[in-house]
């Protein structure tokens, strides 16, 4: 390990634990990714499903609701994330009780990722042939059967694929959350690396983010492949 201390002195100085330690940063990134993926994911799924159901030719065709969903998604998608962080702060204050810190970042992160995810889900669900819906209706399927057994199940490999893409872009967003004191690997790279001219820290932080992305990509590809029976 001596060579590592020699070439990456500042990395070693930061240490594992403590406020600026590596484990802390990794933990914060995982924490932010997990919870905002969960909240934003649920929100995105609801909006994605809604967009498909309310759309023209959808099973609950409704122009008013479609427009509401569509505009909400477009609105949040249009706001650059770094601005959303600031813009949403009063709301964050109401929900979390504070505007700064890792937990506070979950609100803008969820709101930042859900419109992207909603669009991806919309596209994934639209790939389900309408004939399958008709066939299910013809055997008396209920509304929830159509959602869960037809739309979500038939699109599951596409959903795995778009979820992977969304998670990777979400990790990108968590790196920006450092701006509101949320910590994480992105913050380490900027605050302890770039700002202090400690390039070794930036390098290692980037490397760790890459590992995150790689693992998610591999798991996502594996799932997408194994959930797909549409072709032999």
């Amino acid at each position: 390990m001596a060579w590592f201390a020699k070439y990456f002195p500042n990395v070693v100085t930061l240490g594992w634990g403590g406020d600026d330690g590596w484990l802390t940063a990794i933990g914060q990134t995982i924490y932010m990714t997990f919870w905002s993926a969960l909240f934003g994911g649920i929100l995105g799924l609801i909006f994605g499903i809604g967009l498909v159901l309310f759309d023209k030719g959808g099973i609950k065709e409704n122009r008013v609701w479609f427009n509401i969903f569509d505009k909400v998604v477009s609105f949040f998608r249009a706001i650059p994330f770094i601005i959303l962080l600031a813009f949403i702060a009063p709301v964050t204050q109401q929900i979390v009780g504070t505007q700064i810190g890792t937990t506070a970042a979950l609100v803008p992160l969820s709101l930042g990722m859900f419109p992207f995810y909603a669009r991806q889900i919309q596209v994934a669900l639209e790939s389900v042939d309408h004939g399958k819906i008709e066939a299910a209706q013809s055997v008396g399927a209920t509304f929830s059967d159509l959602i869960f057994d037809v739309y979500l199940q038939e699109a599951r490999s596409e959903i795995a694929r778009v979820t992977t893409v969304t998670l990777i872009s979400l990790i990108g967003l968590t790196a920006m959350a450092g701006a509101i004191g949320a910590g994480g690997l992105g913050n380490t790279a900027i605050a302890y690396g770039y700002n202090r001219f400690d390039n070794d820290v930036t390098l290692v932080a980037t490397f760790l983010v890459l590992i995150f992305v790689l693992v998610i990509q591999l798991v996502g590809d594996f799932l997408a492949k194994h959930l797909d029976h549409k072709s032999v």
Partner: protein
Amino acid sequence: MADSVIDLENINVFFEQEGQTIKAVNDVTIHVNKGDIYGVVGYSGAGKSTLVRVINLLQKPTAGKVVVNGETLFEKDDQTNAKIVDTKQLRTKRRQIGMIFQHFNLLEERTVIQNIEFALKHSDQKEKEIVARAQKLLDLVGLGDRGKAFPAQLSGGQQQRVAIARALANDPEILISDEATSALDPKNTIQILDLLKRVNEELGLTVVLITHEMDAVKRIANKVAVMSDGKIIERGSIVDVFTNPQYPLTKELIGTAGESEKARKILATHPVQSADDQWELLHLTYTGPSVIDPVVTELYQKFDVEVSIIFGNVDELQGVPVGTLFVTMTGAAANRQKAIQYLHDQKIGVSKIEKEAAK
């Protein structure tokens, strides 16, 4: 109609598209009796698929009345508000109306047996009974050993069999086949049609068969309706419509038009050696075995007209042999008139065919 299972009355299905009203189905009334295999034929865009989707209300009509098994599912005229069965009842009713599709529409992320079990999800049977029932249905369609396969691993014909098993899962009384053989090769087409015929006979199922292929209708249907531009232009028993088609479109679909063309081509290479007003080209249709031979001889003896056969064939419709003959009849005009009348009296369908193709 005592034993009528499907009554569609004055059905309209209109779509608004870019400010225009498209009349997909225009004032169609149709009655299907129990045990019928009712063919609905027409070119694509004629409104066949839209019409049959009205039966299980996958397509809600703009106006009209839908009665299935004596129960009114939908009723609306131009003035009144629509009366429609509630969602729950409609779902139960839909299970009594099986449906199969051109592209099979199986759930591809489920195995074959899970596809059938899906149709049984809301039956009151226990898990075990559902599995047993699904297996029995697979055996019925001859795929008993493919339960664990995914649809993509099966051929088109096999997938359609699974779709039939799924459609039959809830013991329906009606089976709607929407172009179910149109994506299949000829061999699979015949197998699927024969399977439909079998379930019609063995399970007493009423079948509504939508297709643009007359051969499919010819093979298994007992009644047929011809649709064009949202209207039914001709209908009746299969034998009647085939032996005596009234409309040009029907003739075209049946192939009479094509056969007439063939007759003209043969005549062009082997011209009739008589003056033009001394002969005519006739299309004869007859049912029952070999009644035609003595008639042709009789015509010569009784009316002094000479009948020569250009070509002909015999089809079987509903187990009845139906013969088609293209003939030239040569003789004096008055004699020909009498001869044709005589043919009519013998229950032989006669229609005159233009000697020259219409320009």
